[in-house]
């Protein structure tokens, strides 16, 4: 009798979630909808601007065509090369800065909780601040120009390179490291012969990936005055030379595609 009653108190039909789980899910969905509705209601949209968007777009395309190919020689081609230098040098600098932080962030190489947390904090703050904001900070220090842009790219990349490098080190197989430690090898030798061969593929792919991202980012840093082709873009926009803007946008597009082709090639030959 007792068991029968107990059995009846269980639900007869199968249910995927318990009441608590369902409640939590519904709360979450409700919160999503509330957030979306609230944002849509309070966001500042000027309807007149929206109505003439098609005209504005047509006007923009009209002004961009024909593309001003003749202005490529001189300042724009120089700015383009400067952009590539900024991306490459920034990546190299970020490797130099990020490797020590990455080594400190890896728990198996640096078994010190305090140092790990410090390194993590450096990595997180490097990633939370956008590269444009980094550029603004470095412009305040070095003045406008490509130096500020390169430093911005380097500091923004520390978080990315260091985090992925630290993760790669943490995933390294402990066997070779234990063997080296048993022979009495120094820390430098352990890193060089124990860790480096294991993390080398990850290292190269991270560096190539970051270089690709940096090529994209360095193209816009000039908008705040940090050098490169973004500066040419900014002045062309300020002067309403939209045919020149079109040329610069096409160039950025071409460089981005080229960078992607280069890293695919490099990955094949390096890994």
């Amino acid at each position: 009798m007792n068991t029968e009653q107990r059995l009846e108190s269980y639900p007869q039909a199968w249910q995927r979630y318990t009441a608590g789980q369902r409640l939590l899910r519904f709360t979450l969905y409700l919160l999503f909808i509330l957030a979306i509705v609230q944002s849509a209601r309070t966001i500042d949209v000027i309807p007149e601007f929206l109505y003439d968007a098609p005209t504005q777009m047509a006007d923009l395309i009209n002004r961009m065509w024909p593309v001003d190919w003749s202005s490529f020689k001189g300042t724009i081609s120089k700015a383009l090369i400067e952009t590539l230098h900024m991306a490459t040098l920034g990546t190299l600098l970020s490797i130099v800065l990020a490797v020590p932080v990455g080594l400190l962030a890896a728990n198996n190489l640096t078994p010190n909780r305090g140092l790990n947390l410090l390194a993590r904090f450096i990595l997180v703050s490097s990633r939370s601040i956008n590269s444009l904001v980094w550029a603004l900070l470095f412009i305040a220090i070095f003045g406008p120009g490509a130096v500020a842009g390169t430093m911005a790219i380097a500091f923004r990349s520390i978080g990315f390179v260091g985090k992925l490098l630290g993760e790669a080190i943490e995933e390294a197989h402990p066997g070779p490291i234990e063997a080296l430690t048993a022979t009495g090898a120094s820390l430098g030798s352990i890193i060089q012969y124990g860790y480096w061969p294991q993390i080398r593929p990850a290292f190269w792919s991270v560096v190539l990936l970051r270089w690709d991202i940096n090529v994209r980012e360095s193209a816009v840093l000039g908008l705040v005055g940090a050098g490169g082709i973004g500066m040419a873009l900014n002045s062309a926009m300020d002067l309403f030379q939209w045919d020149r803007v079109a040329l610069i946008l096409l160039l950025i597009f071409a460089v981005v595609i080229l960078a992607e082709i280069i890293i695919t090639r490099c990955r094949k030959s390096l890994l």
Partner: protein
Amino acid sequence: MAGVNAATTEKQAQPFALSWRAKAGLIAVLVYAIYAASQLGFSWERFEAGWELGARFIGRLFPPSIERLNILWQGIAESLEIAILASTLGILLSLPISLLGARNLMPAWATWPSRAIVALCRALHPVIVAIIFVKAVGFGALAGVLALTVASIGFIGKLFTEAIEEISLKQVEAVRASGASFANVIIFAVMPQVFARFVGFATYQLDSNLRNSTMVGIVGAGGIGGTLFSAFQRFDYDFVCTILLTIIAIILMGELLARMIRAVLLDNVSLGELLRRRGKTTFRAPAGDDV
């Protein structure tokens, strides 16, 4: 004999010596770095002057100013609205696009246009897209929403297409064999297999939009970025510090929130469990985009 012995011991001393190619590569990188640095105008005097300016600059950042909190709040609220709306629109639009782009479900005439759209959305930096939208729909938050929507389509569209292409076709065949319509095949055979990854991508994109929404304001597309940029231009560095700290705090909170959403939707935790454990579900951002 002695000579041979000496040669072998010398070889053994450096068993992992760098090959000549690696050495040449290192030297080339070093030479390039020096050349590029000289081209870009790096110089020691500049760094020396920079140290001093940097110290003064950091001195002026502190203490953070808390005078204009209402301006700060307006900007932050607008950034949050931009992030939420852009993520919603981006997710809603990238769902059909990525379904159309999956090669294992769709014929070629449907996949290549949707793949082209996704590639185009990915190729341009959000700030550049924001510039174009500022011209099209004027200054303000709408341009930011549209620009970040485009960025979201590029990111989620690509990853979601790849996720759909990796599903097991057995379940699709089984559902199809029961006479289900195409919509039912999608809902009952495809979606359950990719839902978990989709939630992962979507929460990551929300996080990433939150970060980028602080940036599009610099070109006039609304949000805290505009406030930040004008504070920089007016040398209100103590207010800049307040804004930056708020942004970092919001991004950290956003990461916690994203982790919670994943825990509730994917791991089915109850409320008590949610409060007790923290950070068990780790989602690694798909390498291939800005982390």
